[in-house]
């Protein structure tokens, strides 16, 4: 199975925070900007692709035991979000690409 580190390398992603979690295993991807939807439907080990930088993002990522969060379109995590990612060891990654493009690349990589 691929790890978050493998994905960072293959898709050339920035690592904003939570580098301690780069060895987490990735079971799939979940694309959503609606927090309740992720709460309800995402599965453990998925990489969450979103442009939400809201402070609740890390709370949800940790509750659902997600592998990592990828912020798209050049978005950066808020300071408290990055702190929480460090504590939880869930990496926040970043790309300038859009959600559609990075999702396409991830899908091709891990399917």
């Amino acid at each position: 199975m691929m790890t978050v580190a493998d994905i960072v390398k293959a898709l050339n992603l920035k690592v904003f925070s939570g580098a301690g979690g780069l060895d987490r295993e990735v079971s799939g991807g979940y694309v959503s900007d609606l927090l309740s939807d992720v709460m309800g439907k995402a599965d453990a080990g998925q990489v969450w692709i979103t442009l939400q930088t809201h402070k609740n993002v890390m709370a949800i990522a940790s509750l659902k035991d997600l592998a990592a969060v990828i912020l798209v379109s050049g978005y950066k995590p808020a300071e408290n979000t990055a702190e929480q990612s460090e504590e939880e060891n869930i990496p926040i990654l970043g790309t300038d690409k859009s959600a559609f493009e990075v999702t396409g690349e991830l899908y091709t990589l891990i399917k």
Partner: protein
Amino acid sequence: MEHHEFNIEGGDFTRAGYASSQVKKMLKQMGVDVAIIKRTVVAAYEAEVNVVAHAYSGAMYVDINREEVKIELRDQGPGIEDIEQAMQEGYSTASSAVREMGFGAGMGLSNMKKNADELHIESEPGKGTRVVIRMQLNATTGD
């Protein structure tokens, strides 16, 4: 100069966009360039949704002729404490209910700024907000 008024109900996400849609129809009928129509209605729609998302009630006032359109939104609501901060991309105080409706990215005001020829915002915290969008139209028909 033609004048139109539309009421906007705070919290009514079913109807949000109705006023901007009417503006779009007027501009189309006047034969305004499609790129100008898009910039105008995107700015108007963001402003209209802000009233629905953040205020209790309000209205859109549209003054239009062949050369230009002035779109003014006035609302009764919490107002904006720090307009400069609110303009920053990503800044949002949207409730979780508003976020579940597909808004609250904190991009609306900067979208308005990018699309409007002129944007003016004034606000009295605790009372309400006034937004004015002005666009040059150079329309081919209409009055």
